[in-house]
């Protein structure tokens, strides 16, 4: 470890590795730190991701592709089934990943692009010169160190600290977070479809999912809207769900996690500082998918970092270009998804059933998430009046 870099990236998940890869390729001297001693572990993710999107960022490798899926099925509370293509939910599924290996492959990509990775190292504060962020205070394998940088990028996940250090309020209100539990269930029959189960008794303000990982195993999980959860609810509901749907399944892993479902955060930059990924609440509030948005935002942040450092101006005003780029793309998508989520969390089971019946048989394998939203709106304009501006 040196005492000075062009860019320090805090957090080696998809967002952080993407920033590090992009900035290194642009010729910058980059340090990527990870507080855990292993990158990618423990997993906190359902592992579904859009195939085309992933391919834009990394060459597919069977080591981190657990399964490929053909599409999705959504089940209304009364069991009504809608079957749609893998493009569903803004193309959130297609691959079911092995995140432990995937995240490490992304970090390898950063390293082979020239970045330095240091694990078991966390940021404990920011170094500032006047208002400007000029580096981090860190704890590296138990030792305190100060490391300087022209730009610090926070990619430290849902539990982000560095955003707060930089004066950005990353706290999530309970209504803006999904609290999740997932079991890896083995010895079950699953086909090549991701399944989503809706219902207020199944997952209040969220959904339950079954993502196949091949060879009779699947990620079976549940997300509950924070404002409707109480102590330990996700694990309790998931245990019931698994008992009911997979009575002979054997649980061989447990995953806990939380997903920002707030839509765009107010601010992601400060003088010498940027935020990306879950720490910037860039995950999709409807689906909870965050990997691709994190990878895309990472490229934007890395590119803007390189051009700002080249121009020797890392002020908040100069970094605004990053903010502009992600709001124009990711921001627009997640704002639309937020409108849909905010409506869905108010629906009763009867309303979910009515909606499912209204488009049953009208879904086909070419439909994406906003095709479904459009079809639902046409069939139920009164109930879904809030969607009127989404379907243009």
């Amino acid at each position, binding site marked *: 470890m040196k005492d000075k870099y062009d860019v320090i990236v805090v957090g080696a998940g998809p967002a952080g590795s993407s920033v590090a890869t992009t900035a290194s390729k642009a010729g910058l001297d980059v340090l990527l730190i990870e507080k855990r001693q292993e990158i990618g572990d423990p997993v*906190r993710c359902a592992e579904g991701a859009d195939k085309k999107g992933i391919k834009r960022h990394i060459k597919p490798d069977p080591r981190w592709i657990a399964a490929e899926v053909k599409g999705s099925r959504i089940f209304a509370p009364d069991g009504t089934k809608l079957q749609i293509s893998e493009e569903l939910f803004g193309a959130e599924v297609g691959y079911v990943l092995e995140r432990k290996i995937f995240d490490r492959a992304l970090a390898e990509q950063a390293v082979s692009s020239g970045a330095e990775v240091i694990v*078991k190292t966390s940021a404990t504060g920011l170094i500032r010169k006047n208002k400007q962020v000029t580096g981090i205070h860190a704890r590296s394998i138990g030792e305190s160190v100060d490391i300087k940088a022209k730009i610090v990028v926070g990619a430290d996940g849902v539990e982000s600290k560095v955003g707060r250090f930089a004066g950005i309020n990353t706290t999530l209100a309970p209504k803006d977070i999904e609290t999740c539990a997932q079991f890896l269930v083995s010895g079950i029959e699953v086909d090549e479809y991701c399944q989503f189960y809706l219902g207020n008794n199944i997952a209040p303000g969220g959904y339950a999912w079954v993502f196949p990982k091949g060879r009779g195993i699947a990620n079976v999980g549940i997300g509950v809207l924070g404002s409707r959860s109480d102590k*330990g609810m996700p*694990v309790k509901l998931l245990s019931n769900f698994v008992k009911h749907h997979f009575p002979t399944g054997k649980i061989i892993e447990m995953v806990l996690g939380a997903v*920002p479902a707030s839509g765009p955060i107010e601010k992601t930059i400060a003088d010498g500082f940027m935020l990306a990924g879950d720490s910037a609440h860039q995950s999709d509030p409807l689906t909870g998918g965050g990997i691709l948005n994190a990878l895309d935002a990472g490229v934007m942040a890395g590119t803007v970092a390189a051009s700002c450092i080249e121009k020797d101006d890392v002020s908040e005003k100069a970094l605004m270009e990053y903010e502009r780029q992600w709001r124009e793309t990711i921001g627009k998508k997640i704002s639309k998804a937020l409108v849909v989520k905010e409506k869905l969390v108010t629906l009763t089971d009867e309303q979910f059933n009515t909606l499912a019946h209204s488009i049953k048989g009208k879904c086909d394998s070419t439909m994406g998430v906003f095709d479904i939203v459009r079809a639902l709106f046409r069939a139920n304009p009164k109930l879904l009046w809030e969607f009127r501006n989404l379907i243009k």
Partner: protein
Amino acid sequence: MTVTVNRYKCGYCGACVSVCPMAALELVETWIEINNSCNDCNTCVNICPIGAIESVKE
């Protein structure tokens, strides 16, 4: 007033950290540290997916 985290139950996911309005919690590798700014709002108690957090009445 504060909260305690049962380390034997905690799945170190960071959900509690993300909702804490006082920034009183931190996920350090595989455990949660609590500083003295906790205002006992109990938001973390309800968000924890496995119920590892208890409110402490003094």
